[in-house]
């Protein structure tokens, strides 16, 4: 009995101690938050970005710190999320009518829906003093009907990253300039016992790049613009794009398990490239970075990597200088304080752009910052972009999300061999017309 009482008393004592500690913590937290009030009217800018790894992560932190140091009354609250997590969290916040003040955007159809719903601010006037310092192609992604809603910080193009050593081994002298040459080279690589192509069809969008680039080459800029506008994705050039792609798919040029392969990760298509037995991948400018991060020593295949643009298709309306790609930028939330646009202006300054360019992985859009890019593959992409005659934004971003997803799904079915080129074009058109 006595022992039991003692035990109870001991337990009670511990409980009281715990409560006391909790109370202390609570008061400490309480007083802490009261202390932060300053004399000037404090302003908080909530900034959501997706550069969740270095060098981007640190660069953005520094940029925010510098702006806060110059504007003592401004606090920038940064929320960093991984790409997919960002998309769903943003969606939730928008539904709650609470957009962040400054957030990642890819422009296009997704931005148009946010603008339609009134969640994004018109910054045409507020940004007039600096917006023309940026690339016109980049700005156009965030401009809807003459109204500027944000600014780009990164603009890239999709093209082929290839293993020059494997091309040499297969006896290929120069990268292909036409689609027929590409098909020939694929056969040469196969004959040499090399897997010609790595594709992340599990993630869908890397497979979509193939169909989309063929569509841009065959339908041309006007043809694609027409389809984006009226949903005529079942027009002849898009069926033709599917047929050409089917010719390639029928050669069985991809790595094993490509239908389930993601882009990133150990079982991903970037790792396959790092394995040095697969010759090429059709990907955006971030590819060398991902291949590096999927290698043991962090250098990937830098010693043998090369870049060439998507070849032309004979008889197509598009030319070799029509660029398929896209960029990243920030748009300003509807409730954002005016300082947000100033901050966006700082992000868009030449100084910051040069730092982005030097750090690699980002192709800055501020005029005059091109020289900051030194990575040879990136230089090739920058030069290609600079010579570009037309910029086609990623098809799954220029269209509303539902159509973008339908494009990705339909193309995956083409890769799996369960849909014909006509069915692929028909499914996309049906989704675009809201059927």
């Amino acid at each position, binding site marked *: 009995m006595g022992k039991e009482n003692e035990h109870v008393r001991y337990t009670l004592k511990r409980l009281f101690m715990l409560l006391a500690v909790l109370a202390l913590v609570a008061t400490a937290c309480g007083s802490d938050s009261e202390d932060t009030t300053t004399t000037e009217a404090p302003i908080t800018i909530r900034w959501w970005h997706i550069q969740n790894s270095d060098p981007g992560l640190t660069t953005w932190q520094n940029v925010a710190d510098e702006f806060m140091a110059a504007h003592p009354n401004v606090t920038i609250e940064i929320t960093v999320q991984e790409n997919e997590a960002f998309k769903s969290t943003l*969606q939730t916040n928008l539904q709650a009518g609470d957009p962040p003040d400054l957030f990642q955007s890819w422009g296009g159809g997704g931005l148009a829906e946010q603008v*339609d719903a009134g969640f994004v601010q018109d910054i045409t006037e507020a940004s007039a003093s600096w917006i023309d310092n940026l690339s016109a192609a980049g700005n156009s992604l965030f401009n809807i009907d003459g109204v500027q809603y944000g600014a780009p910080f990164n603009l890239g193009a999709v093209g082929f990253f290839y293993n020059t050593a494997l091309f040499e081994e297969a006896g290929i002298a120069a990268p292909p300039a036409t689609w027929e040459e590409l098909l020939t080279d694929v056969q040469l690589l196969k004959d040499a016992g090399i897997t010609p192509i790595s594709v992340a069809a599990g993630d*869908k969008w890397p497979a979509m790049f193939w169909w989309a680039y063929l569509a841009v080459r065959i339908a041309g800029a006007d043809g694609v613009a027409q389809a984006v506008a009226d949903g005529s994705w079942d027009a002849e050039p898009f069926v033709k794009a599917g047929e050409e792609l089917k010719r390639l798919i029928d050669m069985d040029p991809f790595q*094993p*398990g490509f*239908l*389930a392969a993601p882009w990133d990760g150990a079982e991903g298509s970037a790792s396959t490239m790092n394995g040095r037995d697969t010759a090429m991948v059709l990907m955006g400018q971030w590819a060398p970075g991902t291949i590096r991060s999927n290698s043991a020593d962090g250098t990937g295949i830098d010693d043998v990597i090369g870049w060439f643009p998507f070849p032309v298709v004979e008889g197509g309306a598009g030319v070799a200088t029509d660029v398929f790609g896209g960029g990243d930028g920030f748009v300003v939330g509807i409730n954002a304080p005016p300082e947000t646009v100033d901050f966006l202006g700082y992000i868009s300054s030449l100084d910051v752009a040069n730092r982005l360019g030097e750090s690699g992985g980002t192709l800055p859009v501020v005029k005059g910052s091109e020289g900051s890019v030194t990575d040879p593959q990136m230089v090739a992409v920058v030069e290609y972009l600079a010579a570009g005659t037309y910029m086609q934004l990623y098809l799954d971003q220029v269209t509303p999300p539902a159509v973008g997803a339908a494009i990705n799904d339909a193309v995956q079915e083409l890769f799996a061999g369960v849909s014909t080129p006509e069915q692929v074009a028909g499914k996309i058109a049906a989704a675009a017309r809201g059927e």
Partner: protein
Amino acid sequence: MTSVRVAARTRRTPGQRRWPMIIGFLAPALLIYLLFVIYPIAQGIRYSGYDWNGLKPLTDWVGFENFRKIFADSSFIGAMKHNAVILVLSLALQIPFALGLAVLLNQRLRGRAFMRMMFFAPYVVSEVVTAVVWRQLMRPSGFLDHVMSGVGAEGLTQEWLANPRIVLYSVFFVVTWKYFGFHMILLLAGLQQIPAELREAAAIDGATFRQTFRHVTLPLLGPTLRISVFLSIIGSLQLFDLVWVMTGGGPINASNTMATYMIDWGFRRLQIGYASAVSVIVFGISLVVALAYQRWVLRRDVKGALTTMGA
């Protein structure tokens, strides 16, 4: 008359006095339940009648159009079939397997506790971790393929997650790997509640092991087995995390479940109205199955519980 009424009133009084207390204790839970369960369900039902992207105002009332589209979409029908396949396979393979193991580990065996722990371990691991690990193991020329060629079965290796005809069974395999231990522990607990005297009596009467199992163990294990089956059914209908992380429902929707289909339409295509209609369908199916199961299968067990409480 009066005396009866008075008696009735005095009998009722304690109940009346208890009402404020009942309401007071019930209110917080009820409020949370209304706010986080009933209200979202009602909202989901409301959204299901609109063509809505989640951003613009709710204006495009389309009635039952979303439901018509869903049932016209072969990938939703496919997703329903996949749920059904997982459900049937779970009941036909997973539970008998778990039952067999439970009976085995209910015997006196060397290393029994260790084996119980090992079999239960997968259940403790989070679903996302499970999915990520198995995605690695099942990748082309990954661990699984290496093991198979190690034992001379390289002819049987497959593109486990990339082949649309196989991926659903790969997913089922991982589901089973993750949950058989849970069902095993559940059934083991049931087995241990069966008094040993009954089996001893059967043995004295000359019953074989098989007869004892069929006529003593199995009937007495009934309530546990029915709960196990119920959890398995609900789990199969709601299967999401494992599939989403392992395959994303692909390739070409070959491993889609109703839940991944719903998330895909809601958060990738931002067709919130359409996805809400899908959620209403999934809710309806789950509700009907759960109520039917309770009404016809669990009734005896539930009634038993009520009788005890009444007495």
